[in-house]
């Protein structure tokens, strides 16, 4: 019997061996995930800097596949006008898994310091080519050429140059090579960019694809949603391990001070009341807590009902106006179409704050573009979710919780439903991060948002139906009155056909009236409830 050998592997090594769980399972999915990760980093950086994003993305074919079908090598380049990265952090940000600037409690797309790095890792293992990064925070430009030491989860810098920055450029450029399959991922990439443009109408995105085609997603506004604030954790959102680390590193002298200093919305009274229910003396120095005390505290926090609701200021919802704007521009809607967005009030699940926003669109413009039935767009923290739709709680809310016929929606009614869930912790059901789990609180908010919109939709549809009936009615007069006039004149031996315009005007006034009433349906406004 061979002796077992024990070893640990580095995080880089782990993802190298398990790249499918990060979305790099095959060449077509890998190219899509690469675009997605780099684009999200760029958008995060622009939002952190609070400037409307200007993003240029290019995919170029480097090595065609050898005649037959299969993966090819592409070069991927992305340029943004975000914060840029301070020189000393550049190699770590792109050469070390689990390194990043987003470990604070504040909504952003990236979270673990994983996405960008793993993209580079994938490029490296499929092409053995280094990544090139150029970045500036407004001073000189730093350009790096580097690879990842997978075994040690360390960057290997191959080249570092410093350039003058005469124009005062700020932002980041990343260029790498990787194996991919563009023809298979083309549709998803396009869809991803389009839906991103929908929830970021303040972004300008240019994409040049390997066939040389240019796609432009133009910004519709310079207005950006208010930035999220970093907040302290809520007592209910903390697990045993996190609490252990906090206790170990705190400078607070006793538990009462500890609670007040490290958690949101905890004052003197609440701190004392809580520690009492947890039967922990408020005067205990944090360092003296044993492991069983920590478990007790976490349990007590879950049961304690007197904490404030988690602070939602760490969230960055899109807002009703911007969401409406983005959908209108990407779906080419006109003012005659129905479009409405709502933002629900902040709510919480398991100690995490979240906000649901939803928008609904319906009308002739959609019908003309071939929409039929419900088209669902799902977003989590402004990231479009394109896979596993029917496993998602949003899908469930739309297709199981709503009886559409009460809202006059039939199976072929062209209807767009967009739902955005934002939270410091999105309840993803799996590592794939493509669909949300059935958290009852989240499901309820989604369902309510859709109901709220659907009530207005119903009004619009019933008015459209009346309008169409009215139009048909009028067209009947327009058709038959001239005939009656013509033949009565002939029958009466009159030369001149009598004028029917006064009669048409008499019925035409009704149409204007109906049109006026139908225009009263609100466009892109919410109710804020």
């Amino acid at each position, binding site marked *: 019997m061979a002796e077992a050998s024990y070893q640990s592997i580095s995080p880089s090594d782990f993802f190298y061996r398990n790249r499918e769980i990060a979305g790099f399972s095959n060449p077509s999915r890998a190219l899509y995930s690469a675009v997605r990760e780099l684009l999200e980093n760029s958008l995060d950086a622009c939002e952190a800097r609070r400037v409307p994003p200007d993003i240029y993305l290019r995919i170029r074919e480097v090595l065609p596949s050898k005649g037959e079908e299969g993966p090819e090598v592409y070069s991927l380049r992305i340029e943004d006008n975000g914060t840029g990265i301070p020189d000393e952090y550049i190699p770590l940000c792109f050469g070390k898994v689990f390194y990043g600037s987003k470990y604070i409690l504040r909504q952003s797309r990236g979270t673990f310091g994983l996405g960008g790095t793993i993209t580079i890792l994938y490029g490296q293992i499929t092409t053995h080519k280094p990544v090139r990064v150029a970045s500036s925070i407004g001073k000189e430009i730093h350009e790096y050429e580097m690879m990842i030491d997978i075994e040690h989860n360390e960057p290997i810098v191959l080249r570092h140059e410093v350039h003058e920055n005469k124009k005062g450029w700020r932002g980041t450029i990343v260029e790498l090579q990787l194996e991919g399959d563009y023809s298979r991922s083309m549709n998803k990439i396009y869809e991803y960019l389009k839906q991103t443009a929908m929830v970021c109408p303040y972004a300008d995105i240019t994409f040049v694809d390997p066939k040389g085609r240019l796609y432009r997603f133009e910004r519709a506004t310079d207005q950006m949603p208010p930035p999220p604030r970093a907040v302290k954790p809520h007592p209910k959102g903390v697990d045993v391990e996190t609490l252990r680390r906090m206790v170990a590193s705190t400078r607070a002298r006793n538990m009462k001070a500890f609670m007040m200093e490290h958690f949101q919305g905890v004052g003197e009274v609440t701190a004392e009341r809580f520690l009492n229910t947890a039967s922990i003396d408020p005067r205990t120095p944090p360092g003296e807590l044993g492991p069983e005390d920590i478990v007790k505290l976490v349990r007590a926090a879950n049961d304690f009902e007197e904490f404030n609701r988690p602070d939602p200021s760490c969230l960055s919802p899109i807002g009703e106006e911007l969401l409406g704007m983005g959908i209108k521009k990407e779906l080419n809607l006109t003012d005659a179409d129905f479009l409405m967005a709502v933002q629900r009030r902040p709510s919480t699940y398991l100690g995490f704050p979240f906000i649901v926003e939803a928008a609904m669109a319906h009308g002739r413009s959609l019908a003309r573009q071939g929409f039929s039935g419900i088209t669902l767009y799902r977003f989590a923290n402004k990231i479009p979710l394109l896979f596993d739709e029917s496993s998602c709680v949003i899908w469930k809310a739309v297709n199981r919780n709503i009886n559409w016929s009460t809202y006059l929606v039939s199976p072929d009614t062209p209807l767009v439903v967009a739902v955005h869930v934002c939270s410091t912790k999105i309840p993803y059901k799996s590592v794939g991060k493509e669909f949300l789990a059935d958290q009852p609180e989240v499901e309820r908010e989604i369902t309510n948002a859709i109901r709220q919109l659907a009530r207005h939709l119903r009004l619009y549809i019933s008015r459209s139906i009346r309008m169409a009936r009215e139009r048909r*009615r009028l067209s*009947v*007069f327009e*058709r*038959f*009155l001239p*005939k*009656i*006039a013509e*033949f*009565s*004149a*002939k*029958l*009466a*031996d*009159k030369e001149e056909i*009598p*004028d*029917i315009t*006064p*009669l048409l005007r008499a019925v035409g006034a009704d149409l204007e009236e109906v049109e006026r009433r139908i225009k009263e349906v609100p466009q892109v406004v919410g109710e804020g409830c």
Partner: protein
Amino acid sequence: MSGKAVREADRQREMTELALKQLGSLVYEQIRAREFPWIMIQSRSTDNIIYDQELKQYILGDRLIRRHSRNIAHIRPFAQLIWTAWFSRELLRHRKTSTLREVYYSARGQRDIEFKDQDESDNIITDLETALSRPREDFNIYPEERSAIFGDLTIEYTVPGYEGKRMNLTEHPDGVMIGPALTSAEFIETSADKVLVIEKGAMFTRLVEERAHEKFNAILIHTAGQAPRSTRSIIQRLNQLGKMPVYIFTDGDPWGVHIAMVIISGSANAAHLRGLATPDAKWIGVWATDIVKYRLPTEKLTDMDIKRLKELKKDPRYGGELWQREIDLFIKLGVKAELEAFSRYGLTYIVDKYLPDKLEGA
């Protein structure tokens, strides 16, 4: 004599043309007055169709309805009515005749007037008849089915190209078709003293061959099933003007019975018209009683037959004793007999024996 007939026909036509023109003027002036045009006509719905005991026919009641072009459901038939009025006047003006089917086809290609089917155009024509209280024949519109007439009757045509031309109706051994020309013709003279109406063509031909017109001194008319209106109007004229009794001879089944009744009392469909019913006409067979008496070959009554007989029994026109008795007997016997059934006694039996019997009894 001849000039008078033509003048009378001309006068009738001018009156009809005038009525049509007045309809046009009415509508024309309403539009000029910035009003949605409308007309009043008698309602033809079943609750406004009443059986008049004195006239012994169906008539329309007093209820009027307004056809209003402001009404979305009326405007299309309204436009069709005005078009049909115009079309009729063109017919009269150019001295042409047309058929119901032709009217339907003439509207084809008239955008927005076009009829969905012939039922629709027939219905609009009936509206026009009701609105102007004139039968469609006055508008020179005739049905397709044509029946025939044979016997010693001299007529004088009034139709264009034949004005003043005379003909004796024994000139054609197949009989003369009852069409627009005959309907508008003047009756000049006859030696006949009765009219014999037969439901079926084959029996009509047999009677002509057997010289029944001479034997019975009768004018023979063949209705080809339900008698068309023009045929009924000729029967009525022969009865009223010529003071000739009318005898009707049909199959011995509910459908034959009803053919006779429509000639006698008219139909609900034509309740808006007069001059089509001949209340004095007599149905002489084939009765249920005859089936027994002459021991005729029979067929069983079908469910449809029995249902129809029960309906007839309740119909106000069938109140008379003869009708009730025969209907009851048909139901009791459960059988029916066709005219041809008499062939069992030889081809001439019907002329030699049956008809003399029945005419004597009538």
